[in-house]
Structure formats: structure tokens, C-alpha cells
């Protein structure tokens, strides 16, 4: 049988954009029907570009060359734009990461799917296309497709939206589906659902080209993995080989960078990851830093109609030197809780005590003196920096005003930057010119400037690549151990939470549904939701028989 994709020596350059360096160089790629091939790499590795070139969408001014470029046996090197257009949708469907952007906001998802059928004349009439679109929505596991088809993308939840996008990609029954980070921004349980839909397509004989930065995710579904770095495939093979016995140093480094229950107390980054953290953690914690009692917060949804309970009777305490992890899906109340602890929102009921004194119930003036002892590390550091400020200004803003002398201040700022692994050359840089990891380091330096007793981190690494995430996690863990700061660490990623926390709270629909030791809690989940999280984790990471059971019943 002819392979769907048979490419050898694929090289992509952008000659007009300057830099004659190839962004993709000499990549070989083969996708058979009923097979899932994964391209794994970090952002900027060229994995998306490789996949897009298979649809003739490498971008304006791209120069694509290859020794062999066969799409279902036809030589694509001679294709004109019209040939490509016929190919898209019928030969290959594309699923992108951000469904909200990829779906037309002015069209219902039913029309969106029907559009493809009509464009490629796969349905005789508009009415027939509509019926077929609903069938397609049902095929990707959307219940009640008739009424869902009349909804717009923004009215759907993230998971439904992503499934609608997959529906539009497979509507024309293409033998190949290209999925570019299809689950990246989704909650873990939703990720599992999306993967199940893809698995079902593979079982029905569709070839899937999956692009992801997540090695673990890929291992659960792919038959063949290519690890891409700087536009080159550094390692290829079955997921069992690549993940189990990685040959290339880069693959090993990527694998070591993934945080999990097994990596607790060890470093994730560096030339030799897996080292024990320098200071072992002490088992007993000293004073109580933060205590939260019976926090409740309601939001009126629209004109006081339905009331959304964002937080419902949440209580916990946090001691000096302790890391408390909060894990939950989007909308579970994690961030609302952080906002109340930060004093940016007032709770409807309950109380926050910080450093032994009332915090939530007092006026802002009474909090101000203690503000400096509570610092915050956000998910998106760039937006938390004043756009006019240099790195020096940003860190200086949080320095005590008592520190006299410009030279003295500058030395202190340089010292803080050094602690987070940036040299003094960064002092005069503007944050937009820094990389994501460097920006997060500046945010950490800023937080440390006031010697805080409590650090609140809200998804501090979720926007970063695996290896950068590993560096930032190592940095945070090292600093936390040395300074014995209490840390409230919020994340949707169970692996990250297991890696960093001493204790874990599981949030679900505004309530703490489970709490305990980060390893034991997920080994023997008590609450239904924790069990669902663990199940999703297993599906995502390919444990629990991916070849046999899951593939057909999903």
C-alpha cells in the first residue's frame, strides 16, 4: 500500500526573511494509513513548519526542497496552488492548537463543518451537508449534535470546541489528519477526551501526524516518534525505544526535564539532571505563615441571575519552608483563591490570616506594611512588567525604599539577578527582548527583592517549554529551600505539582475535594475527581494498555 506521506530530505528555508539557515533540514517523514507519527520538539524547532509544508502551507516566501516528496504516491514538488487547495480537506485535515482562533466566530460550528463538505462537493446540497456535519460532530463524541451544531465557537467549552475543530478537519474523511498541539491549552481530563477521538480515527485507518512538545503525551498514542531539534530529526523510533532507551543526549535531556512524582527532590535541568537538590528539606515546619478558614466566594453570572460559586468553604494552612500545591482544572477556583489570598478580592465569607494577623478582613491601609512579605509570580510575567521599564527598574520597584545610594541599589539588583542566573548585562534590557524563561527569572528576582515570607506562584511554568520549565522549577526549588520561604504553588499539571509540593490540595468546582501527600494522594485517590485526574494521566501517558483496550472502546 502506498504510504500517505513519503518525504525524504525535506529542507525549508525563508530566503527573503534573511538568515540563509534552513529552519527545517533534511527531515525524512513517512506516514502510513492507520498509523500515528509524532513530531516532538520545543518551540522553534521547526516541527509545525514541517507539518504545514505537507499541506503547502509553509508560509509566504518559503522555499521547500526535498529529494522525495510524495503525497499518496503523487509528487508534490510539481503542485500548483490549485492542486494544494484540492488536497487540503480531502487528503489531509489540519487541527490547530487554539480552536477559538481557528473557528470562524461568525459561523456556527455546524456551518463550519458543512462548509468543508460543500467546498469539496462531498454533499449534494446545503441540507445534506448540514445533516452530514451533524453526523461528523457525533463521530467526534459531541453529544446532542443537532443543537450543538447551531452554537458558535465561543459558546462551547474548550474540550467541545477542540472536538468541533477536529470534526471540521475530518469532515471530508481525509486519510491523513495533521494535529498541531491539539491538546496543549486544555485541561487534563479534556486532553484525554481529545486523544480518545484521535485514537478512534487511527483505529479506523486514518493516518495521524501529531505535533507536540509533550513526550509523555506522544508516548500514549504514537507508533513512531521523531524528536526534532533545530529543524533536524535527532532521534526516531518507536515510543518504547525513544522514551525507554533514548540514544541521543537531547532526548535524554528532554525526558529528564519532565517533572513527576519520581523527580521529587532532584534537579530537572542541567548537563546531568537527576541530581539531589543541595539542601534536603527539613521535615518539620516552623511557624504558620498563612491560614485560610472557610473561604467562600460567589460571582453573579449575569444580572444577579444564577450565582456561580467560585469558592466554597476552603480552608488550609501553610507553614514556613513548606510548599503547598494546588491542582485543579480551569474554573476550579484556584486563581480566585490566589486573588483572595493576595488581597485583590474580598471573600464573601471566611478569613485569611497572614503572619498571625487578620489579612482579608482589614482595610488595605492596614495590609500595606505586610504586603512586601507576600510576593506573587504570575503565569505571564511580561504583562506584569510596566512596558516602559528595564529589568533594573522592575526589580528596583520592589526593593526597600530604605536602601540608600544608587550604587548600592544597583549592586543589590545585580546580586538578585545573579541569584536567578542572569548576569548584570541584563540590567538595562527591556523585557520584550528577553526569552520566556528569562522573563520568568526576572519576575522571580523581583519577588525575592523584598525577602518575602510567602511566595504565591500561579501557573508559573505552564507557558514554558519543557526544558525551560525544568530550569525555572529547579531555580524556584533551590531558592525556596535556601530561603525557607513558604510557597503556594498553583498548577493544572499533576506532574509539576507532584514534583514541587510537600502537600497537595485538589480543587474541583470551588471545593477542596482531596488533600494529602503528593505521591500517596495520586497513588490511592480517594475522591472521584482525583480518580478521574489519575485516569486521564494514565490515558495521556500511555499506561493502561493503549494498543488493545483503549483504542477501540474510546
Amino acid at each position: 500500500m502506498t504510504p500517505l506521506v513519503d518525504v525524504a530530505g525535506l529542507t525549508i528555508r525563508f530566503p527573503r526573511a534573511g538568515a540563509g539557515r534552513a529552519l527545517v533540514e533534511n527531515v525524512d517523514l513517512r506516514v502510513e494509513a492507520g498509523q500515528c507519527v509524532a513530531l516532538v520538539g520545543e518551540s522553534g524547532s521547526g516541527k509545525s513548519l514541517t507539518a504545514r509544508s505537507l499541506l503547502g502551507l509553509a508560509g509566504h516566501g518559503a522555499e521547500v526542497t526535498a529529494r522525495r516528496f510524495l503525497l499518496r504516491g503523487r509528487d508534490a514538488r510539481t503542485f500548483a496552488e490549485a492542486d494544494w487547495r484540492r488536497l487540503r480537506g480531502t487528503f489531509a485535515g489540519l487541527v490547530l492548537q487554539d480552536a477559538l482562533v481557528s473557528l470562524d466566530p461568525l459561523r456556527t460550528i455546524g456551518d463550519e463543518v458543512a462548509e468543508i463538505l460543500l467546498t469539496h462537493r462531498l454533499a449534494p446540497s446545503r441540507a445534506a451537508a448540514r445533516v452530514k456535519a451533524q453526523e461528523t460532530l457525533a463521530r467526534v463524541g459531541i453529544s446532542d449534535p443537532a443543537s450543538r451544531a447551531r452554537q458558535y465557537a465561543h459558546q462551547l467549552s474548550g474540550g467541545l470546541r477542540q472536538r468541533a475543530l477536529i470534526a471540521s478537519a475530518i469532515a471530508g474523511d481525509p486519510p491523513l489528519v495533521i494535529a498541531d498541539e491539539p491538546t496543549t491549552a486544555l485541561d487534563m481530563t479534556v486532553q484525554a477526551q481529545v486523544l480518545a477521538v484521535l485514537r478512534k480515527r487511527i483505529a479506523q485507518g486514518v493516518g495521524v501526524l501529531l505535533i507536540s512538545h509533550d513526550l509523555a503525551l506522544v508516548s500514549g498514542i504514537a507508533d513512531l516518534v521523531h524528536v526534532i531539534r533545530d529543524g533536524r530529526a535527532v532521534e526516531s523510533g518507536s515510543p518504547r525505544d525513544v522514551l525507554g532507551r533514548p540514544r541521543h543526549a537531547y532526548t535524554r535531556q528532554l525526558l529528564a526535564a519532565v517533572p513527576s512524582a519520581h523527580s521529587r527532590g532532584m534537579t530537572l535541568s542541567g548537563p546531568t539532571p537527576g541530581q539531589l537538590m543541595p539542601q534536603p528539606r527539613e521535615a518539620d515546619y516552623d511557624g504558620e505563615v498563612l491560614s485560610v478558614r472557610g473561604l467562600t466566594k460567589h460571582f453573579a453570572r449575569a444580572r444577579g441571575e444564577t450565582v456561580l460559586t467560585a469558592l466554597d468553604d476552603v480552608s488550609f494552612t501553610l507553614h514556613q519552608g513548606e510548599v503547598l500545591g494546588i491542582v485543579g482544572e480551569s474554573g476550579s477556583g484556584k486563581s480566585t483563591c490566589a486573588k483572595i489570598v493576595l488581597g485583590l478580592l474580598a471573600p464573601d465569607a471566611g478569613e485569611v490570616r497572614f503572619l498571625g494577623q487578620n489579612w482579608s478582613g482589614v482595610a488595605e491601609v492596614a495590609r500595606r506594611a505586610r504586603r512586601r512579605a507576600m510576593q506573587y509570580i504570575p503565569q505571564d510575567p511580561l504583562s506584569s512588567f510596566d512596558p516602559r521599564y528595564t529589568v533594573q527598574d522592575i526589580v528596583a520597584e520592589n526593593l526597600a525604599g530604605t536602601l540608600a545610594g544608587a550604587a548600592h541599589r544597583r549592586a543589590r539588583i545585580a546580586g538578585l539577578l545573579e541569584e536567578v542566573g542572569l548576569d548584570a548585562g541584563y540590567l538595562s534590557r527591556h523585557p520584550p527582548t528577553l526569552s520566556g524563561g528569562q522573563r520568568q527569572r526576572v519576575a522571580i528576582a523581583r519577588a525575592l527583592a523584598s525577602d518575602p515570607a510567602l511566595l504565591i506562584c500561579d501557573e508559573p511554568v505552564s507557558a514554558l517549554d519543557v526544558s525551560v520549565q525544568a530550569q525555572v522549577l529547579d531555580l524556584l526549588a533551590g531558592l525556596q529551600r535556601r530561603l525557607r520561604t513558604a510557597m503556594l504553588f498553583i498548577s493544572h499539571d499533576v506532574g509539576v505539582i507532584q514534583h514541587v509540593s510537600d502537600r497537595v490540595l485538589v480543587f474541583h468546582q470551588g471545593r477542596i475535594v482531596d488533600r494529602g501527600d503528593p505521591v500517596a494522594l495520586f497513588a490511592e485517590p480517594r475522591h472521584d475527581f482525583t480518580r478521574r485526574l489519575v485516569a486521564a494521566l494514565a490515558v495521556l501517558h500511555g499506561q493502561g494498555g493503549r494498543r488493545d483496550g483503549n483504542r477501540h472502546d474510546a
Partner: protein
Amino acid sequence: MSDVQHGLTVDALAPTRPTATQRGLRWRPPLSAAVIAALAFVVLLCIAVAAPQSISFYDPLRGNFLQSLQPPSAAHWFGTDRLGRDVLSRVVYGARYSLLIGVSAMLISVAGGVVLGVFAGLRNRFVDEAISRVFDVLSAFPSVLLALLVVVFLGASMVNVAIAIGLSGIPKFGRVVRARARLVREADYVTHAFIYGRTRASVFVRHLLPNVLTAVPVIATLDIGTAILAVSALSFLGLGPQPPTPEWGVMLAESRDVLRVAWWPSVFPGLALTATVIAFTLIGRALQAHFERRAR
């Protein structure tokens, strides 16, 4: 998707030699020739404002009746007007009035717009509603009509013309500043400053105001041209500075009667006015492009 180009080259072994442009070395002038010319013109205007005697040779007010309505010549480059006054000198001295009134009008617009806009953008909904409706009313009148009303009430004078034009420009700045203030108010870095323990006043001065004001220089520059034009229009109508003041609008009005026999007394001040408006517009656009590039 129609602009997507997919250049598949069959021969993978034929390397293309990178040219200078491909290596990203193409030299882009930091400023276009037009902007440089505009800047030069504004420098000339500034000299005319500061030291008009250095680029003109005659008294702009004293005429010589024997020399009335002389066409451009070596002695009088721009000719003379009906009263025998040197047109070049009058145009040069006129820059002072036009520019000063135009810039003051712009400053009045900026001051009013920033204060009202910040209040509307930060304060509660009622303040916002009230101020926004004032903007609506102000901008419902054509600006010249509004200025006319003000001048009629306050009397015709240079100061009053500046106030009149300035008032009518307030909504333009006010709306931009209000939108900007609402945006900055919700920005993460403002929230962050509160987390550090900064007071409202300190956040306002350190973060809010500076980031709101970044929007102002561009529209202010663009506005100077418009303001100067409006000032001249009012002067032309006899509502601004009075003859024999060498203001460009006044000169245009004075020379209207002799246009059939002598084009120069009206064309040269007209050209000066046009060139000034174009120069400020060009510089404003260049500033705008500069800030937009930097924001990306």
C-alpha cells in the same frame, strides 16, 4: 490563503547564493526624505518664531506706497502687498503668530483632554458617563462653528482664538486618553504594583499616568497642523488677530481683494500655511509609525 506561496524547487542540490537582502542586510533609512524635509521646515519655522529678523530684511508692518503690489523680484522675493509691505517679511513674522496660537490651542486641548480623559477612564461609571456626554456634545459641533461661538462670546483676540480652537480639540484627546486609561487600569502591572504594597496615588503617578500619556505625543503633533489651520480660518473670518498683524489668515483676508491683479500676497502665506500643516502631519505620522514598531 491566496497569498500563501509555496515555492517547491525540484532540484534540491542547487544552492542559491544569498544576496545582501536575503541576509537581512538591506539598509533601511531611519527617516524618509519627506520626513527629513518636514523636520527641516519645522526648524526653519522655529527660527522664524525665535529670530524673524535673521531671515527677513524688512519691517513687516511698515509699507512703502510707492512700492505697492510689486511682483516677486530680487529686492522682494515674495513681492509686496497693497500697502507696499514686503510679503516675505510678513510671512516670516507671521509664523510666530500662527505657530504660537496653534501650539497653545493644542496644549489647551491636551491639558483638558488628559484631565477629563483620565477622570472618565478611572473614576466611577457616573463620572465616566457625564464626561463622555460632554465629549459627545463638544464633538457634535463642527470645530470651527464651536470656535466661532466661543469667540463671539469672549471677543476676538489672539488668546481667545487659542482658547476656542483648544476647547474644540478636547474630545479628540479626551477619548483617546479615556480608552487608554481603561486599558492600563486593568493591566497586570498595575495590579502588581498594588501587590507590592504601593498606594493608589503612587501607582497612579508611577505606572498609570506615564503609560496613559504615551498615547499623547503622536496625536498632539498631528493636532498642531489642524490647530494652525483652524486658527488661520478664524483669522481669515476676522475673529482672530486684527490687521495689520502679519498673521497668515489675516494676510489671506487682506489680499483677497487684489487677487485678480496680484497673486503673490495671497499665494505665499497660503503656501506657508499648507507646508506647515503637511510638515506636522508628516512628523506625526512618522512618530506614530515609530511607536507602533516599538510596541511590537
